[in-house]
């Protein structure tokens, strides 16, 4: 049995009322969802609440999952992402909501990133080892716009492929690639700034 079949079976058992199957699903996915939420929301408390919400939503809608329409992981990611959007609506107000939902043109295209970059900072390799550095990276990630943040999280932290990300975010693959590259570049710019101040 491959992974998809195993998951499909688990989902069927779960929909049939098997509590052990549900626990298996939770065990398999909580770590990943927690990490997405943590990197997106920025702090453990929110991450925990959001993860719990994701599973409550999953539990209620598991019977709507259709394995023919895509991988379970993508389905789970979609639920997670939608809740993250909701979380933003609540916590940041409507301004950011617009930014999440509407075409990404506005601020993404306002100025080519390369023009915003004044100079080159230290190469990342010199720093990636330290825990402090990772904390800087995590903080810088929080400063990215939500749509860039979610894109780089799914690609560079969760290692999802572009097609899966496009499905989860409901945008074309080209847009996904563009956001990922913008997100990476902007993060580098923020960190270079940070290092100029710190070092």
């Amino acid at each position, binding site marked *: 049995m491959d992974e998809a079949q195993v998951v499909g079976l688990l989902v069927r058992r779960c929909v049939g009322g098997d509590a052990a199957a*549900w626990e298996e699903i939770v065990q398999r996915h909580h770590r990943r969802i927690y990490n997405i939420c943590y990197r997106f929301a920025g702090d453990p408390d929110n991450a925990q609440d959001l993860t719990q919400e994701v599973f409550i939503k999953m539990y209620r809608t598991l019977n709507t999952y259709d394995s023919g329409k895509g991988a379970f992981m993508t389905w789970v990611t979609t639920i997670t992402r939608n809740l993250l959007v909701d979380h933003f609506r609540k916590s940041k107000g409507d301004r950011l909501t617009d930014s999440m939902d509407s075409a990404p043109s506005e601020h993404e295209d306002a100025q080519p990133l390369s023009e915003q970059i004044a100079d080159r900072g230290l190469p990342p390799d010199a720093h990636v080892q330290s825990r402090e550095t990772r904390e800087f*990276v995590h903080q810088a990630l929080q400063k990215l716009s939500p749509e860039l943040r979610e894109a780089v999280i799914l690609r560079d932290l969760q290692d999802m492929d572009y097609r899966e990300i496009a499905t989860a975010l409901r945008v074309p693959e080209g847009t996904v690639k563009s956001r990922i590259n913008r997100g990476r570049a902007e993060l580098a710019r923020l960190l270079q700034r940070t290092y100029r101040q710190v070092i």
Partner: protein
Amino acid sequence: MPGENQHGIGCTEFETLLTEAIEGQLTGARKEGFEAHRRVCSVCGPLFADVQAGQQWLRSLEEVEPPAHLVHNILAATTGISSTRVLATTPDASTTPFGERLREWWDSFVTPVAGFVRQPRFVMSFGMIFFSFSLALNAAGVKPSDVAKIDLRPKALRHTYNDLQIQVVKYYDNIRFVYEIESKVREIKRAARPAEPAAEQPKQNPKNNTSGQPDQRQDRNYSRDENQPVLAALPDAPPAVKGTTNRRFV
């Protein structure tokens, strides 16, 4: 061959190829054209460097450890039970796992009193009698050692207990009540024993009965965290995992 002349490709095409280039998937002429443009273009060159650096920063982030109680909380928030894993080997009998768990719990804490648990009324009566008796002894100045020797565990009662084990699920409310009674009695015992401040220590209980565990276990139950979730997890109504789950999914 579009990559051979000049810098090979324009800025737009460079951006199109950026993702593949960063991931090392460009080959041949396309790669050459891309590299040529990167070297000479004052916009695309730095952009590439940033994208690459950002990717490295991001990939330096390690997976974080979820809180230990997260799974428990999720299960409690969805199915209402903290875990099915401690239990059970028979997946089809949805009530069996809970019964098993309850039996373990029962065995470890309330064995001596369990024999009395035949029906709710009886538990109430027993509890009240026992409580009153203990109070009376206490008030009458009976020595603590005497109180401690009150034998709650005659063999005959243990037989009854064994017969009744399977009915545990129905009676857990009563068990809880007996718990409270036992706790109260224990408090009285302690109060009557001022010269023994370390009364909680298991070995100090002078019982010679092999099942002299209840008193120390009672302490565990009321003071140690590990026992709290068990009580807290007991639903108000007899648990019916399957039914609950079905209802939620429909």
